């Protein structure tokens, strides 16, 4: 059983009205309203730093709230203790979208009262997708309302689709660059970070409208891709540097960029968008940001597919990927195509960073943290095939999210990497790769 208690768990409680749950229903309604930003009924005061993220819950014994229970909430660079009021209710504002651990302080329990589930003193509140999470610590008779397994699967699959689409846009960038130049670009994660932090700069700091910030972000990211090729990779191709050497250069370049970003933007997690409108269908509660991000991702992926299959430049790109010398001999300017690929990859990856940042916030390590997922996606789908990168990214997205149904949440990235190794065992060229691509 997933210890996570999202607000929809309470909604399901409505279907089984039992008197003992009346207290829980009050909490549920509170949470439903608090998920709508305009709601004035939310009793939680607005936090000073503009965050609307709330973890709350109720500690009750036999359906009656217990006062004075202390709960320690810890997250990334955050630790605070909340205390229940006379009705057993508690709530706490948290700064960033992340996973938080809520630990009930056993020495604050009244005499003779224990946890209903004595093994679980720490529960997780996953605020990466929603803005309100509820954590319940039942005492005495078990009064928990559990989310049916099918609903849990639907929620996780939706989150997986969202993550997979995001990864796909960035992974196509890796895949295009690998296809045309043979470079496994380990500095790609920093392009994601660059996109996210540029959006933060224009949208959150300079307070420009989102659409203008987005256009600026994509333009600067495209220019960044152009600059990388013009200043670094084209001269290195001119020196006839081997592909493995180029890969290590990209590792060095990635480290360099990462610490430049750290020095310029410092190590704080940047709150890019604190405005989350809840959208609800079936058991799934998500935000308008996520829906918008998914729509943009799908449109972008379709546009890339059309570009690669329908336009002259797209066809030339695929020809260069297939065989650069042959493409050159048919009159295709290979260097020009590679330059275009870097610009397109920069723009796509910047866009991915922006969409990621708008949903999950970002810091200097954001891109590096998903870099391995991106490589897993491209390798899984088959290095150098754009469709493969999309399929691989969706698989990785689903595995990351669905794995948390059976595995602890802190192993979800490990699960996707294990899937990568297993697939390579069975099918080394990846799901859609061509056999000649492996050694």
């Amino acid at each position, binding site marked *: 059983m997933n210890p996570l208690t999202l607000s929809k768990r309470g909604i399901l409680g409505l279907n089984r009205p039992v008197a003992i749950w009346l207290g829980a229903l009050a909490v549920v309604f509170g949470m439903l309203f608090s998920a709508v930003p305009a709601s004035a009924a939310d009793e939680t005061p607005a936090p000073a730093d503009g965050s609307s993220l709330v973890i709350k819950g109720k500690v009750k014994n036999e359906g009656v709230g217990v006062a004075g229970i202390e709960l320690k909430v810890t997250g990334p660079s955050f630790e605070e203790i909340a205390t229940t009021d006379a009705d057993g209710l508690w709530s706490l504002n948290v700064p960033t979208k992340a996973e938080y651990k809520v630990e009930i302080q056993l020495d604050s329990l009244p005499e003779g009262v224990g946890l209903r589930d004595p093994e679980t003193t720490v529960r997780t509140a996953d605020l990466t997708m929603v803005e309100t999470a509820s954590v319940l610590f039942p005492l005495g008779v078990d009064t928990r309302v559990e989310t049916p397994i099918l609903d849990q699967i639907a929620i996780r699959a939706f989150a997986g689709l969202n993550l997979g689409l995001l990864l796909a846009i960035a992974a196509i960038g890796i895949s295009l660059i690998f296809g045309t130049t043979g470079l496994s670009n380990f500095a790609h994660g920093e392009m994601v970070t660059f996109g996210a932090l540029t959006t933060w700069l224009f949208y959150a700091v300079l307070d420009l409208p989102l659409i203008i910030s987005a256009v600026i972000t994509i333009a600067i990211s495209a220019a960044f891709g152009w600059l990388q090729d013009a200043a670094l990779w084209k001269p290195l191709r001119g020196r006839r540097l081997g592909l493995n050497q180029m890969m*290590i250069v990209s590792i*060095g370049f990635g*480290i360099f960029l990462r610490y430049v970003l750290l020095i310029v933007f410092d190590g704080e997690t940047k709150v890019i968008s604190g405005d989350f409108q809840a959208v609800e269908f079936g058991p799934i509660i998500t935000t308008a940001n996520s829906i918008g991000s998914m729509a943009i991702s799908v449109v972008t992926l379709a546009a890339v597919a059309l570009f690669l299959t329908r336009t002259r430049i797209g066809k030339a790109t695929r020809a260069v990927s297939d065989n650069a010398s042959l493409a050159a001999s048919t009159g295709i300017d290979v260097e020009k195509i590679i330059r275009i690929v870097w610009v397109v990859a920069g723009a796509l990856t910047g866009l991915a960073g922006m969409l990621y940042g708008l949903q999950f916030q970002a810091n200097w390590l954001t891109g590096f943290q998903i870099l391995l997922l991106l490589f897993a996606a491209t390798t899984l789908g088959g290095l150098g095939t754009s469709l493969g990168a999309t399929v691989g990214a969706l698989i990785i997205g689903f595995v990351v999210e669905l794995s948390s149904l059976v595995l*602890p949440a802190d192993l979800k990235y490990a699960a996707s990497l294990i899937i990568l190794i297993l697939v390579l065992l069975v099918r080394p060229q990846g799901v859609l790769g061509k056999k000649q*691509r492996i050694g």
Partner: protein
Amino acid sequence: MDWLAIFNLALGELISPLTAAYILCAIGLAVHFGFTGLMNFGQAAFAAVGAYGMAIGILTFGMPTAVAILFGMACAVIFALVLGIPTLRLRADYLAIVTIAAAEIFRYLMLTSGFAGVTGGSAGLSAFNEEFRALNPFPDGEYGFGPFVFREEELWMRIVGWLTVVLAALFVMFVMRSPWGRVLRGIREDEDAVRSLGKNVFAYKLQALIIGGVIAALGGMIFVLNLSNVQPASWGTNFTFMIWTVLLLGGAATILGPIVGGMLFFLLLTLTQSIIGGLVDVGVINFLSPPQVGQVRFLIIGLALMALVIFRPQGIFGNKKEMQFNG
């Protein structure tokens, strides 16, 4: 600026146990990459397996330190088999991605709260080096001269660390001069040619992965014995990339390369960092804050790695003919 203190600090890095630990990992990587041509980007995991193997052997199974060290080495052998059997047939860039993924998987497994009873979770393990300290034969006091003055336990740590380095380097030197070592170099230069001579390339690669992995595991043990704790955060990808920089600085296909490369790397790193720190203190550099000076360290590592691979891929001692970076 106190130049004497800066130079003393940098010279102290030359023979510090951490330098020895990195050098051991780099010698292991020389076996993998320099001599066999395996693009192993999971070297941090081999060091971590050794470190955790030893610490868990002592703390969970109550082994004496010597047995626990053997246990840590055995863990590295097992890890090499688990990593190598599925991945060694892959092409170099696939191998790079898979080894880096495997290293991260291992780190996540050490980090997860599910196994915290054995691994200590994100806090890691400590209090495993009491027996190692007790084995110290040197009486209390200070030893050495000039910048190299150590208390008895510091001296003991250094002697153990550098003795291991010398033994590992001698071992690799003899092994690489043997017919077995020549086959490894042959695999690096042309795998198919070696295969056509009837050699089992896969088995040779696996043996090289095991030998290099065990040497890196010893490096990991020195690392944690010196710090007196083992934490998952130490074994991230930055650890691996630092080892690569050390190796490429000295020369990948050489015996002395990792040793001199490691000493030089930490000497220069400490020197540049102290000088930048000093310039920040006296206000000459005013765009950096004191905490950012430590971040500049990695910026330098990144640039050094790029410059080395571009301009001198064979390193200080290497022979350009031996450094083809096939692929």
